[in-house]
């Protein structure tokens, strides 16, 4: 990558401070008593929504969320590794993903809330060819913004959101480093860091189809530093939808399930822009009065790899959400 610059470590110290200080301060202003008559969980027309982390709900509420997940893609074919004329004999590759996310949303008024979030996603090549081709990638960052209610009817809710995201992608490029060293490229770098700051705005829509079923839709657009480092800035968009089922109204048991799908135009874990990526989640959740504990079955379909071919990855995640 022709560059006069080395990527610096992003504001990780700032991130650590933010994750400590801001939730503590915002917790002071959360006012659970203000909605004593209203369910703390997102609900409309007798339906309580089972929110997913992939397609966030369209409700102005106070809550805290933490999630931890793992996914893996196996048997990925890579072309033979050729370094300075020598071909390395390696097996097919596999990729392992790990995700960590925390989020806090504090109600400011019954129509607006502020939210902060932090996320870390890592991708590791766990076989020789994938480690050499894809290396190790860590995407980390934070986000803060506001969510405001725009319109509410008996069965629907429309919210608008704005946010600023500071994210960096750190790439350990084993193959590129080996090629640069072999080709006597000056200042060969093993680690590259791509910082991005982006602003986003979006709409979230919720529809309580019945006391048991609900639908959530998401549309977002963003603008800012391009993940693809050769570009200065770029626009991006996200579309998402989820359908959820709450068993409490019909069966009286505190269980729910949701299926969510999200399509994004920007790469989330690489600096290579190789087309849209999509994710799915099937959530099975215990739904308490104020809390939700969920197990997710994750599916990732993307072209965020050096070969620009579609990769399927599957895994699971554990998520907890507490409403105030």
């Amino acid at each position, binding site marked *: *990558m*022709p*560059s*006069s*610059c*080395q*990527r*610096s*470590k*992003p*504001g990780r*110290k*700032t991130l650590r*401070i*933010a994750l400590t*200080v*801001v939730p503590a*301060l*915002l917790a*002071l*202003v959360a*006012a659970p008593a203000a909605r004593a008559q209203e369910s703390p969980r997102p609900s409309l027309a007798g339906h309580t929504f089972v929110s997913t982390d992939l397609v966030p709900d369209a409700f102005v509420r106070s809550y805290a969320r933490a999630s931890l997940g793992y996914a893996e893609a196996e048997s990925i074919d890579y072309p033979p590794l050729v370094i300075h004329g020598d071909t390395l004999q390696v097996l097919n590759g596999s990729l392992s993903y790990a995700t960590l996310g925390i989020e806090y949303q*504090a109600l*400011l*008024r019954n129509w*607006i809330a*502020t939210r*902060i979030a932090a996320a870390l996603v890592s991708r590791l090549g766990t076989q020789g060819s994938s480690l050499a081709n894809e290396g190790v990638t860590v995407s980390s960052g934070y986000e*803060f913004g*506001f969510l405001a209610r725009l319109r509410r009817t008996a069965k629907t809710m429309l919210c608008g959101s704005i946010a*600023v995201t*500071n994210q960096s992608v750190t790439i350990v490029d084993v193959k590129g480093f080996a090629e640069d060293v072999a080709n006597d490229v000056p*200042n060969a770098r093993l680690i590259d860091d791509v*910082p*991005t*700051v982006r*602003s986003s705005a979006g709409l979230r829509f919720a529809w309580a189809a019945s006391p048991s079923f609900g639908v959530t839709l998401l549309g977002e657009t963003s*603008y*800012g*530093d391009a993940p693809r*480092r*050769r570009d*200065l*800035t770029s*626009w991006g968009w996200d579309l998402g939808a989820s359908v959820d089922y709450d068993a409490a109204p019909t069966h009286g048991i505190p269980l729910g399930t949701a299926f969510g799908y999200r399509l994004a135009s920007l790469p989330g874990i690489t600096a290579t822009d190789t087309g849209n990526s999509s994710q799915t989640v099937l959530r099975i959740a215990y739904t308490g009065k104020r809390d939700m504990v969920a197990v997710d079955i994750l599916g990732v379909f993307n072209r965020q790899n050096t070969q620009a071919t579609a990769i399927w990855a599957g895994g699971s995640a554990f998520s907890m959400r507490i409403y105030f």
Partner: protein
Amino acid sequence: MNTRSLVPRVSCALLLALGLTVTPSAARAAAIGAQLGINRAALDGDTPLNTAYTDKAGVVTGLQGEIGLTDGLSLSVQPSFDQRKAGVLLAPATRGGSTTELELSFDYVSVPVVVKFAKAAGRTYVAGGVTVDFLTAATLSGQGSDRDVKSAFNSTGFGALLGFGVVFPAGRTRLTTELRFVQGIANMTPGTAAEAAGALAPRLHSNGWELIVGDLLPVGRH
């Protein structure tokens, strides 16, 4: 689209949107005052080879004007002098050599436009908004005489902020203490020199914490 061309347009749109929310009937009270604080600024982004940025403290001082929009909701404009400093650590060129530390100092005239949401009967508040920054000076110091590096940076900037404040009533005035996080959105560097040289345009954003104390004196009808 160029970020620099976007900044004034976005600023105008946001200011207009905020201005539209202020109606004579909604305006309940106004207050003016001064503020003083410190920031712990950070630079985030690309650095030259074998260098790193470190946080440094700077001064924030200015005026503030506040107008009530509805109950517990107010709009505040805070034109300020904002000094942001960062250290630049250069790795030693030879084994056993010492690290060189330079200092980058930016002087901005900042105009934060903030919406405050009062909590706890007005004793605390959450503030969110945008800031438009105008660079007045940029200096690199630490090796011999100071160098004026203003031309290497964009003259205007744009950022977003989120803060938490505590209010102490003191007679007619209100003393405020606020901790806020400010994230620069626009790239600080134009990158034209790098692009002309065939390299990637660098990315650089400021972010950091500001601790500000101020006073607000009510004016007009209450």
